[in-house]
């Protein structure tokens, strides 16, 4: 017996062990529980945004279970870590499908969610992303089993432009980072601006790991725009942009995407936020939102913030669809999910609802974002609602 055959044997044993371990998870079908799967990034670049969304989702599951469960059964939330790696995300999707989950939530990097779709397209497992705002997620692959309830980049720019209509911007600058989502949102921001007849006079990118944004901001200053739109989603790089903005004495109005609504900015961008305009979908004055904040606070002792709301809404909508379907049958759940209409969640302005109109699979209400302004370092009042 050659070394190689021996090694092959050893490897096969190891392989069988690994697969056996994986297989044991597949045994034990959803008899007494409704299984819902969640693929999230626990160690990689998407972690800052994935973790709070996942926390919100887990909280929703806990709440549903405490109130009697779904279809009379408890929900079992199976969480997989894709490490922000798209190929692992696809594998995780397969694992969850094999385990008989009724629905998969993708809370990770945009390409990872995309790659997982190649699996759910095949297995026909209902699949959704509750927080991702990349417009191409529902268009690049035509996957009838996939829905997106995060606020789209195109919705964000449309809302910002509706707010800025009175200002009559003609020439603006765009700045973003080199993350996949940042680039995607930039693309749709640019498209939205050009559609409104506004000229983009400067377009800059701050790469991940940069330690200053001054050259980019100098270039923007030289182009003399009437406003600066921030399309990036990496907090450290956005902080650099804001810092350079102050440092260079720029006075142009700054309008940012929903990333600027996360509370971390108050800590790391002290003194840099006053007057910055941003879109958000979290109105604490709204009844559902207030209830969510209250129950979360009571349960964990911590204050929730907007990202958790997305996860919460995602699970709640999935549960709602399954309830309406009356079972976990994939086809019935699919139809029920597509038929979702008038659903009022935690996220979205007062009067906003989730629905999947005209066969589209993006559910966030185009009118459902609000525009707020930072006052000092605090997230200030709502100055505009929706697209009017």
């Amino acid at each position, binding site marked *: 017996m050659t070394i190689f055959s021996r090694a092959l044997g050893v490897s096969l044993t190891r392989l069988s062990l690994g697969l056996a371990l994986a297989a044991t998870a597949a045994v034990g079908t959803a008899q007494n529980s409704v299984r819902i799967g969640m693929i999230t990034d626990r160690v990689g670049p998407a972690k800052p945004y994935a973790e709070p969304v996942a926390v919100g989702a887990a909280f929703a599951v806990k709440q549903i279970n405490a109130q009697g469960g779904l279809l009379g059964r408890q929900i079992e939330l199976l969480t997989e870590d894709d490490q922000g790696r798209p190929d692992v995300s696809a594998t995780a999707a397969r694992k969850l499908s094999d385990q008989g989950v009724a629905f998969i939530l993708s809370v990770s990097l945009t390409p990872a969610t995309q790659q997982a779709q190649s699996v759910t397209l095949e297995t026909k497992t209902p699949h959704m992303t509750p927080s991702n705002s990349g417009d191409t997620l529902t268009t690049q692959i035509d996957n009838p089993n996939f829905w997106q309830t995060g606020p789209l980049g195109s919705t964000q720019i449309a809302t910002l432009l509706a707010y800025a209509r009175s200002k009559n911007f003609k020439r603006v600058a765009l700045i973003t980072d*080199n993350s996949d989502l940042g680039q995607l949102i930039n693309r749709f921001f640019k498209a939205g601006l050009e559609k409104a007849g506004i000229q983009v006079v400067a377009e800059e990118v701050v790469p991940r790991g940069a330690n200053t944004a001054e050259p980019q901001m100098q270039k923007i200053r030289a182009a003399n725009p009437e406003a600066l739109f921030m399309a990036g989603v990496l907090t450290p790089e956005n902080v650099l942009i804001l810092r350079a903005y102050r440092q260079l004495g720029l006075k142009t109005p700054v309008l940012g995407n929903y990333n600027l609504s996360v509370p971390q900015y108050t*800590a790391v961008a002290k003194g840099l936020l006053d007057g910055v305009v941003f879109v958000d979908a979290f109105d604490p004055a709204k009844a559902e939102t207030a209830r969510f904040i209250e129950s979360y606070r009571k349960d964990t002792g911590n204050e929730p913030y907007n990202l958790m709301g997305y996860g919460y809404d995602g699970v709640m909508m999935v549960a709602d669809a399954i309830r309406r379907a009356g079972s976990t049958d994939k086809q019935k759940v699919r139809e029920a999910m597509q038929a979702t209409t008038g659903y009022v969640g935690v996220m979205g302005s007062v009067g906003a609802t989730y629905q999947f109109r005209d066969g589209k699979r993006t559910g966030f209400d185009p009118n459902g974002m609000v525009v707020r302004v930072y006052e000092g370092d605090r997230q200030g009042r709502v100055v505009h609602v929706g697209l009017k």
Partner: protein
Amino acid sequence: MRDLLELTVSALASGCIYGLLALAYLLMTRPTGIINFAVGEWGMVGAFGGFVLLSALEVPYALGLPLVVLVMAAVGWGTERLTVRPLVERGAPVLAPILALLGMLVVFREIVSVGFGPDPRPVPGALGFGRLELGLIAGSYQSFFIIGSTALVFVGIWWFFERTLTGRSFEAVAIDRRAAALMGINLARVTAMAFAAGAMVAGFAGVLVAANVSAHFMMGLPLAIQGFTALVIGGVGRVEGALLGGLILAFTEQFIVRYAPIPAGLAMGVPLVLLIVFLLIRPTGLLKAREARA
């Protein structure tokens, strides 16, 4: 003109950070031949140390910064003791400690990621975040602080290597390990000191840069790559080379972004192209070592 001068200050400051990281590599590579990719993660640890001491505990900067640096010395010394010394003593090939340190890279990052969570954390600037104008030259307080303190560090290290006995023993070890050992120089001590010094410099850079960019768990790898690139450009041979490499990298990067008419996305390839060009044309870097012995 004002733009140019202001950009110069910015590039100087960035170049100093790159130079400090290149210096950290150099301090460890010269006497031991070991490339420690974990310097970026050490920068991250320093940054979080800065967060804990300076932001969370609000220790005054003049006290907090040296404390962070001291802690980093312990981190460097500890890393050497646990993961490098056993391998060197066993006569393992030079690749082995490099790989062990790559593993430590993951360990450091995960400890911080799990310990502090994924959110970025603020680190204060040395003198706050105001804007300083000296005639036509302008920059942020932090930029000037970085430039000033880096200059001090480099002068200090240069003086250490050129004028002190311990420093010259480092040089001796770098030139010829065996001969140095035969002359009675304690190799283990030199290695331990090299790692402690490397960690101190890397951590120091981390605190300085985190004031602008915040401390976050993914900041290590970009720092490591930037430092590396600076090292290659400047050359491993001389301490001054690290700073020169850092400055060249920063100036090229920033001036191309600012003035070259190429799309922003491609401008990110500039440091990479620069690195490749240097590797192909002059891999030993711009400054040659003093007595070049293979």
